[in-house]
């Protein structure tokens, strides 16, 4: 298919959401998925090498053009005030939802040691977590998990791309009592 690279570049440029190779294949049935993957790879490298104002990043199972974090301060001047940062409490709750999903509210509260209803509601409102369903135990409580938007906001390819948390092994060093 002629011009495939340019077509894909223009589609990635126009799209509001990250586009996966499969989505591109649906838009371009004339091309092979393997071919599409190759072109994405090529574009990704090209933009990286060019080292310009924006890059092609893999996020939430797709690809998306994003500005480089170095230019944040200039872009903030152009765009209206940005949404408030998440509090420490919200980040903790979000991390637990991400690593323990599907997770109950009571499990989140058990780990954090504090009531987390308000934070859960805030994260639901921001569409960073969602109700995944119910757990089949007495009372059928709701279980929560992260959304695609969560992956997009934190620039993660998928849930396997979550950062590895600090592990504390038992009996590392024995000192006092």
């Amino acid at each position, binding site marked *: 298919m002629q011009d495939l690279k340019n077509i894909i570049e223009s589609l990635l440029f126009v799209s509001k959401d990250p586009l996966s190779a499969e989505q591109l294949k649906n838009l371009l049935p004339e091309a092979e998925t393997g071919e599409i993957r190759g072109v994405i790879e090529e574009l990704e490298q090209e933009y990286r090498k060019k080292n310009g104002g924006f890059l092609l990043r893999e996020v939430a199972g797709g690809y998306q*053009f994003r500005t480089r974090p170095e230019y944040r301060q200039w872009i903030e001047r152009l765009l209206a005030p940005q949404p408030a940062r998440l509090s420490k409490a919200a980040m903790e709750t979000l991390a637990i939802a991400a690593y323990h999903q599907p997770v109950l509210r009571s499990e989140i509260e058990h*780990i954090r040691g504090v009531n987390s209803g308000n934070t859960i509601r805030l994260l639901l409102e921001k569409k960073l977590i969602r109700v995944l369903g119910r757990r089949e135990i007495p009372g059928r409580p709701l279980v929560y998990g992260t959304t695609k938007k969560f992956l997009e906001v934190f620039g993660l390819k998928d849930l396997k791309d979550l950062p590895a948390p600090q592990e504390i092994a038992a009996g590392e060093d024995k000192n006092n*009592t």
Partner: protein
Amino acid sequence: MSNPAYQVKLEHIFEGPMDLLVHLIKKHEVDIYDIPIALITDQFLEYIKWMQDMEIDVAADFLVMASTLAQIKSRVLLPDTGSDSEEDEDPRDAIAGPLAEYIRMKSAAEQLAAKSILNEHVFIRQCDQQQQDSAGAETPVEADLYELIGLYQQLMEQMAPDPDFEITPEKISVKEKMNEIIDLLEKKKNISFRDLAAECSDRDEIIAAFLAVLEIVRLNLAGISHTENSSGLLLYSS
């Protein structure tokens, strides 16, 4: 008890009891699987007392943790009576496991917060938001469950403006508990918090008992110790 050297600094606003515990553990650079329980319990209690002195509302979660710590401490200090397989039954395990998981999640949260966050560090092209309710049965619909529930709740609140249904149950008053404990202290010379807690029917009552103990000590109506050989916090008539 009020050694100023142990005063926890004000600049830390703790998310909850776990956060405070992690702070204390980091401060003393101790292994969470080998916590010096007496030291950590003392400092934890001191922090609660300091919050109360500063007239900061102490969340119930802190008090629950305080009584958990006090219980672990008394079990550690009390020599085991039954035949035991020593290593397996470290009472401190009750807190070590949850602490490890909390630290793990805290570090995960920190790492997530350090990512290039969309609309904060990195940006995408600003597109015009799409039209609403666009015609055609074929158009896919994008909707959010939380929004649906929220709107429904708003409607229901407009429908029923009488807030009669939320009646908060009578709480066990700290004053009542104080009277009860002072009565007990007149009969016995000392009482352990563990015994007091054992008498309580639920968590709220334990909290009330704990607050009562703190208040009694604050008003100098009794002394408190939690040294060796005692079963946790020990209250004695002064």
